[in-house]
């Protein structure tokens, strides 16, 4: 590549970037995503204020009521208000979902970056390990691990981290492999920069954008996992209100009180929808040319 | 003109749609006729509109590009207003197209024999076995050695020259009356180019098919075609028999093309490139499109667009200053 051409290409790219950032508030996908997720976060944060009842307190005499004016979604078999549990459940599922991506993101990206950048036997070893983890279906390991580690939030984080770091490793490695060939890396090398500096300052930002975009869809997957675990009675244990657990509770009475199994699921659908839109919107922003 | 023209393009204009404004005009008021068995060349630079013209005839304009006005008559019927199914029925037995880059123009997952047989099966109603036999026969006629074995090959297993022969076999499989060739030899090695051209000429003779040959290579047109149209910025600027046009061009652009092209008969002749660049079609200026680069331009050329008019028997040109051009030539 001749210098004038490279300069022209770089200039065009920068111009395209400013153009896309300027129009972010026009991006329908991004705005709907922000709206939905924003609303959910607000609901979760203000749960103590919004929820009409305590989610854990039992009132056995009021059990299994259909939706009425005192209990808009009815009560479950322990007499707990379903709506309040739904609202408080948002706290649990959203919080854990967001936090659970962090460790895999960091750990996987670092390993993937090392594998891609240094190559050689380091690459082979790391990628073989990645292959092995990929051989296990996500849910099998997560369920087994949570079972082994016992219930509670910490085991969820550990179990998810143990399994989902591999996707980040693969993505980052792929991006690094591509980035390595680019001229700006050769230029940095010639300039005498250390490997670490090249990785962090030069390759890092370009490569991480893909990992971030994947991370958004990963949050959705993690929320799914948490809800599934809750459904099976693992992870977040009763009596804490959690959407998956609520679906399991509701399944018993599906013939009469179908709302109790249906509504929490809808909550998950809406949450995932909002997060997907948000992820797509961010993806448009960061790398518009890659999205199809 | 004794025989009824097989293909008649009249006032054809093609444009690229733009949201919120007028379309960008890519071809403007193209007019030409092809008689049965004739060999017609369309010459021009990239962006002159020659490919688009061909694609409009074939009905294969890319997304966003449409015919703005005009007619394309085949055997007296306008292809543009015909129902789609009837038009599709013509594609193969009447009109066929050969594309430039055979690697991308052939389906990578289908054996070449099957691809050649596809047209006959659809249009001629041949059975699978009969169509396959026909395909092998066509491959032999296009000079592909070991045709039976090669028919089972996939496109990526063949060389460029062989692939182009496959394309030719495919186009000719239903014995069309008009062959539209869009730079069929441009992507080939020079040595192979010559062979493929000769092959194309021979087959057109055998099938008595008309050939519309789009290219930027003047030598090829000289060898293969009898008549030609020269296109610049979407307009036909000169039309006439190839030998006459090349011997005595009647448009500054044609003259510029000839002066800048190497000529084997006069190897020591200095090549004179045409100064400047083709115009931006999205921002057309009034007057003759070639004016900014024309050595004979006058203020009148900038104000009024020259129409394509007869300048000699069988020859047309779109220029106001032809007399000065002829004068300079004689000098």
């Amino acid at each position, binding site marked *: 590549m001749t210098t004038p051409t490279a300069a022209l290409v770089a200039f065009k790219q920068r111009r395209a970037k400013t153009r896309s950032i300027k129009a972010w508030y026009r991006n329908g996908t991004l705005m709907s995503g922000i709206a939905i997720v924003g609303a959910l976060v607000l609901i979760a944060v203000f749960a103590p204020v919004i929820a009409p009842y305590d989610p854990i307190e039992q009132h056995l005499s009021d059990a299994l009521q259909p939706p009425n004016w005192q209990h808009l979604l009815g009560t479950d078999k322990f007499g707990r208000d379903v709506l309040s549990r739904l609202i408080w459940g948002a706290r649990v599922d959203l919080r854990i979902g967001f936090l659970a991506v962090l460790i895999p993101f960091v750990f996987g990206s670092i390993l993937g970056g090392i594998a891609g950048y240094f190559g050689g036997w380091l690459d082979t070893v790391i990628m073989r390990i990645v292959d*092995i983890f990929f051989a296990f279906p996500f849910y099998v390991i997560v369920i087994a691990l949570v*079972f082994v580690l016992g219930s509670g939030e910490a085991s969820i984080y550990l179990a998810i981290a143990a399994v989902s770091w591999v996707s980040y490793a693969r993505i980052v490695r792929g991006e690094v492999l591509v980035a390595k060939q680019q001229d700006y890396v050769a230029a940095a090398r010639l300039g005498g920069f250390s490997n670490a500096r090249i990785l962090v300052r030069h390759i890092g930002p370009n490569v991480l954008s893909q990992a971030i975009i994947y991370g958004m869809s990963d949050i959705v997957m993690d929320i799914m996992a948490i809800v599934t675990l809750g459904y099976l009675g693992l992870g977040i244990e009763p009596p804490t209100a959690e959407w998956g657990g609520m679906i399991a509770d509701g399944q018993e009475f*599906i013939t009469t009180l179908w709302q109790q199994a249906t509504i929490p699921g809808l909550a*998950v659908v809406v949450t995932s929808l909002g997060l997907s839109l948000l992820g797509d919107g961010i993806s448009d922003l960061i790398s518009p040319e890659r999205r199809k | 003109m004794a025989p009824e023209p097989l293909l008649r393009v009249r006032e054809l204009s093609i444009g690229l749609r733009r949201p919120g404004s007028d379309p960008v005009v890519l071809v403007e008021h193209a007019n030409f006729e092809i008689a049965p068995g004739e060999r017609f060349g369309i010459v021009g630079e990239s962006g002159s509109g020659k490919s688009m013209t061909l694609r409009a005839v074939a009905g294969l304009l890319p997304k966003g590009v449409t015919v703005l006005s005009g007619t394309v008559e085949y055997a007296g019927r306008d292809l543009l207003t015909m129902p789609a199914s009837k038009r599709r029925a013509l594609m193969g037995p009447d009109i066929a*197209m050969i594309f430039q880059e055979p690697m991308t123009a052939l389906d990578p*997952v289908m054996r070449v024999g099957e691809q050649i047989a596809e047209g006959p099966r659809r249009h001629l109603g041949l059975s699978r076995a009969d169509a396959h036999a026909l395909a092998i026969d066509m491959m032999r006629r296009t000079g592909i050695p070991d045709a039976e074995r090669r028919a089972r090959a996939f496109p990526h297993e063949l060389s460029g020259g062989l692939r182009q022969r496959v394309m030719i076999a495919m186009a000719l499989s239903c014995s069309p009356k008009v062959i539209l060739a869009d730079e069929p030899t441009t992507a080939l090695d020079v040595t192979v180019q010559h062979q493929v051209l000769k092959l194309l000429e021979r087959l057109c003779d055998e099938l008595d098919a008309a050939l519309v040959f789009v290219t930027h290579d003047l030598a090829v047109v000289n060898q293969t075609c009898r008549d030609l149209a020269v296109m610049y910025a979407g307009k036909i600027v000169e039309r006439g028999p190839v030998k006459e046009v090349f011997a005595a061009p009647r448009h500054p652009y044609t003259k510029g093309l000839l002066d800048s092209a190497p000529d084997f008969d006069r190897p020591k002749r200095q090549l004179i490139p045409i100064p400047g660049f083709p115009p931006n079609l999205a921002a057309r200026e009034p007057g003759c499109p070639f004016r900014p680069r024309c050595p004979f331009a006058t203020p009148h050329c900038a104000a009024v667009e020259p129409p394509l008019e007869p300048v000699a028997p069988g020859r047309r040109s779109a220029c106001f200053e032809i007399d000065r051009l002829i004068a300079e030539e004689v000098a």
Partner: protein
Amino acid sequence: MTHRLRFVPFRLLQAIPVVFGVTFIVFFMAHLLPGNPALALLGNQATPAKVAALTTSMGLDKPLWLQYLLFLGNLLRGNLGDSLSYQEPVLGLVLNALPVTLLLVCYALVLSLVISIPLAALAAARPGRMPDHSVRTFTLLGQGMPQFWLGIMLILLLAVNIKIFPVGGYGDTALDHLYYLFLPALTMGIAMSPTVIRSLRSSMISVLESEYIGTARSKGAAGAELFRVHVLRNAAIPTVSIVGVNLGYLVGGSLIIEHVFAIPGLGSLMVNSIFARDFPMIQGVALFVALFVVIVGILTDIVYTLLDPRVDLSTKAAA
């Protein structure tokens, strides 16, 4: 043409270290917690005597590497231990459940393709217009649904309110199986379709913009015929890779679906053994599931090679 398939033995050989890794992980699942696994296994039934007895009988007092070797040795002889809850050899129980899960997964794959291919074609034929937007909305919603919840909803709609299909179970005859497995397979099929549709749609759009589609049109091909002869096979190629990668996920989902619909496959076995703390069973099922995924990976490569004549995996170095 079959010489392109000669990579298969190599791929199988390559899979062996991965399989070893799998056995390693499966073995160590028991030893994740500090302390005696036997203690963890017995849970609240633990007494010092019971723990001691279980420790010796499981060989937990031997050095770790020796335990692993013994474990491997047993594996190779087909001995996966005995289930603590069923009191029967694990291998037999797993082999009984395996065909059920296999049928479910294949059924789900077929239903997924039946749903996805027409929807993807609809979206790809007119990108950016109404059909495309509708399909995209469908995929967005589909991705957001927990699979087990979708299963419950389908039961609610088609087995409780309108009693077309059974609520759960497996049936006795082969035809019965197909009837009973329809809702669960449909659930999994719908859950998988967003991924397939997205990939197919994208590759179909690419294919439709290719030169060779122009050539096909110049021969008079159009509409459904064009799709069938030229578009589908070319578009399927990149999709096969993506579906292959996601099949592992599909298998994971089947575990939970089997629980929801009470289907006696590997999934139910796994979930029940987790609740029963039946460790040898958990190990056995996990091992088989992982092996299944590895085999699916190799099968994906084979299908990919068969679909795309340009591909020759035998010349590639270890990927």
